[in-house]
């Protein structure tokens, strides 16, 4: 039941907030996100990390096709729900801080998007998963269309159709899987236990990975991302990079590894190389970016490419590193976007090279911004480091050249992030910039938020083992099953 609540609470509050005036809807959304986080923590307390599906809610839905409305939780899903709660919390806080017109509707859409994404994390029936996957697109579509920057019709259309194209091919694979086996059905137990021939696994892998590759994104299916991130309103960018792409990464582990392990060993190599190529590609492009949000978009692609590569290695360190890195990436997204929000509010424009010397205006902010940058670069003791280390280790065992390429991206990442920090914060203040009166003040709440983010970064950086222990059991189970299938082949 608790897993269903993670979907119902945001959905209900989202609907109600949609129709309310801005002030009440802001309060209501805060209630909703805190309630969701509260219930997620509650579920986590009663969750046994070593067992598989718990907190199950299962009712027959469409019996003719064998679809049950089957949701549940294991510790993998639980981690993702925590990340989603965190992201939604910050998205709501960002919305409250910015001047968004028709706030009620915007907040409602954020909560509905959170509900759909939570649904995809707790779904244990492949069809229910697909429905939530598609549903999460719709609030994003409307937010991008109605609150995005000017001339965004083309961007919205590209974003929606690109993702839909991948989803439709995934639907084919899903329908086919539902019909396989003794009975028609889409439940996780049935699908994970189908032993399929390598040829079939190959095309299933392609169908699924193409859909996820579009979402993550992986080179060369990434062209929608930069425009979409930079035209979106900031809270939507946070939702997209903070949690929506985690849906794809999570599903690779939850659904694709059990379905197609042999194919992952085989043609999955191509996807690993593509991920790493994408990481380097994105890093190089990020070097040349002058706009804040576009820089964020390309750096995000670089980081998640590495996470995807970690997953494709099918190694224990790769997978656990991927989950730590997912946590870190969510925290980074919130942190860096918060920085961008504050900079924009203080009158900074989008162009990095036009700013400068802001550290003197607010040293507290400057220090914490530097911490966020360090974490993004994977400096040890910060959140970005443990995951990166695990993934690079796994990549090295897989193929040293791949880890060399991935390591290049770490260096390039340092270059562009530090360069950006330097242009924004260091040096002298650019007198041509018109900053707001009483600028560079941080309210108490904002200081708390910055400190909270810094605390999380240090927490994950110092104690990554907690995350590893939490997700260890399901990962071991998935890996052992897939390894045995590979060996029997």
């Amino acid at each position, binding site marked *: 039941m608790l897993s269903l609540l993670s979907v119902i609470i945001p959905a209900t509050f989202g609907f109600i907030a949609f129709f309310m005036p801005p002030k009440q809807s802001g309060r209501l959304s805060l209630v909703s996100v805190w309630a969701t986080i509260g219930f997620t923590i509650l579920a986590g307390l009663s969750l046994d990390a070593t067992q598989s599906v718990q907190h199950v809610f299962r009712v027959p839905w469409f019996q003719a096709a064998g679809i049950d409305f089957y949701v549940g939780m294991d510790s993998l899903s639980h981690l993702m729900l925590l990340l989603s709660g965190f992201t939604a919390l910050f998205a709501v806080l960002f919305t409250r801080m910015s001047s968004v017109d028709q706030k009620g509707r915007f907040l409602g859409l954020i909560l509905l998007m959170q509900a759909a994404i939570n649904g995809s994390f707790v779904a244990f029936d492949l069809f229910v998963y697909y429905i939530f996957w*598609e549903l999460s697109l*719709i609030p994003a579509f409307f937010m991008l*269309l109605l609150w995005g920057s000017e001339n965004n019709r083309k961007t919205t*259309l590209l974003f929606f159709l690109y993702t839909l194209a991948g989803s439709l091919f995934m639907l084919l694979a899903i329908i086919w899987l539902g019909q396989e086996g003794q009975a028609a059905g889409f439940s996780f137990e049935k699908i994970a236990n189908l032993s399929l021939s390598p040829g079939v696994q190959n095309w299933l892998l392609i169908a699924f990975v193409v859909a996820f590759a579009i979402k993550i994104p992986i080179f060369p299916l990434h062209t929608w991302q930069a425009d979409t991130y930079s035209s979106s309103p900031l809270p939507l960018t946070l939702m997209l990079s903070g949690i929506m792409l985690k849906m794809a990464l999570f599903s690779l582990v939850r659904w694709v590894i059990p379905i197609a392990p042999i194919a992952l060993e085989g043609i999955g190599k191509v996807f690993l190389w593509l991920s790493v190529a994408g990481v380097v590609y994105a890093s190089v492009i990020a070097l040349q970016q002058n706009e804040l949000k576009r820089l964020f978009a390309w750096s995000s692609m670089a980081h998640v490419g590495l996470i995807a590569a970690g997953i494709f290695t099918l190694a224990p360190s790769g997978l656990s590193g991927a989950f730590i890195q997912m946590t870190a990436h969510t925290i980074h997204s919130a942190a860096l976007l918060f920085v961008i929000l504050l900079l924009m509010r203080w009158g900074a424009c989008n162009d990095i090279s036009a700013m400068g010397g802001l550290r003197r205006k607010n040293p507290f902010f400057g220090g914490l911004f530097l911490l966020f940058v360090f974490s993004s670069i994977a400096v040890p003791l910060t959140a970005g480091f443990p995951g990166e280390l695990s993934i690079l280790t796994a990549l090295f065992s897989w193929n040293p050249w791949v880890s060399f390429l991935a390591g290049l991206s770490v260096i390039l990442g340092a270059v562009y992030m530090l360069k950006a920090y330097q242009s924004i914060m260091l040096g002298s203040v650019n007198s041509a910039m018109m900053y707001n009166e009483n600028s560079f003040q941080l309210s108490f709440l904002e200081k708390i938020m910055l400190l909270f983010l810094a605390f999380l970064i240090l927490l994950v950086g110092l104690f990554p083992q907690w995350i590893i222990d939490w997700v260890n059991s399901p990962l071991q189970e998935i890996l052992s099953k897939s390894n045995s299938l590979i060996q029997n082949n």
Partner: protein
Amino acid sequence: MNVFIILAVSGILAMMAGVHGRKSLGLPVVITACLLALAAIYIPWPGDYSEYLHQMLMFDKVSDSFSSIMVFLSIGIFVLSYYYYPAGIQHLSDLYALFVFSLSGAFLLVSFHHLVMLFLGAEIMSIPLYILAASNRRNLLSNEAGLKYYLMGSFATCFLLLGITLMYGASGTYNITEIHEFVQRGGIDVPMFSAGMTLVFGALLFKLSAVPFHFWAPDVYEGSPTVLTAFVSTVVKIAVVGAIIRLISVINLSVVSSGLEITQVSFDHTPWFWLLVLASAASMIFGSIAALQQTELKRFLAYTGIFNAGFVLVPVLSGSSDHSRIILYYLAGYGIASILCFTIYAEIKKITGDNSMNSLHGLIHKNKSAGIAMILCLCSFTGIPPLAGFWGKFGILSVGISSQLLPLVICAIVTSLIGAFNYISLVIRIASPTSEQDSTYSIHPVFTAWILVGASLVVGLGLFPEFFQQIVS
């Protein structure tokens, strides 16, 4: 048969009401008749009423489910027509009578068990439609629509008759059961029989507006009164698909497909199978691509109707009649969304006088319920869960995959994507903020209530797909 009697009598009553100067009685009479017909389908009468007229008509599950959906959609169309036809129009009750006669013909078309009944059903359904298409006599486009529909429809009927004749010539009987036995004895390979089946299917594909028999559809949809367009694009399609299913399933051929690779064409396949496959693929491709350029909403919906005709032929090709429920679900979802689209379009056209898609620009700001309902319909057409259209698409794709029609399924998916582009562009247009802040479209509250009922049906069918299955079983 009770249904047919009820519908026919109500048509006559409506005409009589018109003759005696009480033409406002026309609409209540036909709506009552439709409700009685629904009751007659669902409430079992004592006695065995499954066969009629020496086995010329057969009322089984397929017939009952298809006719109930058709009657249900007709009720929706009659509600639309209440707001569409101005009160003082001449021959108002005659128009309703013609609708109901056409509906009764459609009813025959899904219940036939004798080839002559197939012809009769097709004719009784079509001839009132020709008249209705031209019923807007002052409008040049309406006259064009009526003439085109009549001429091309008559050609199609000729082919239908020729096909029936050839089938009779080959098998020696009109009765479907006996044709079934003839086929079991190897009649499928008789060239005259194949030719006959091909011609019959060609005629039925015409009525369905599938490529290459689709040329009438955009002009007729655009020129006819919107109520008729709604009727033709929903009820007539359901009837024709029901007829095609009966033809295939009752002849009970298990059609084994080996895919569409040219190098592996097996000459055991009959020509009409390939006609259906090519019609399906071509309709999907043509319908989705041609809709890209459209600026007028009714033509746009005509091309999406062509696309849907192709889409709905995919499970028909699987050869078994177990899939009739899935097809019906798809058609019902498509029908409800279609009627809702036409309803909103008719109202907007009445308010603005502009029949292009520009009138939809920023609709959601000008009238919330109309905008939201229109967006829901378009999303249902695209196949976004959890709306009705999604389950229909899912069902049809499932059937396609399980019948090994994979190339056709891939074609369906790619063209669905092109269709999605069309619909989502329209959604974007509807949701775009407009520059004219003060113009709003005010719609009569009862009409708004009907729009919301329709929209909630679209959503409800999507959330509770089991409910629909229970209704039609």
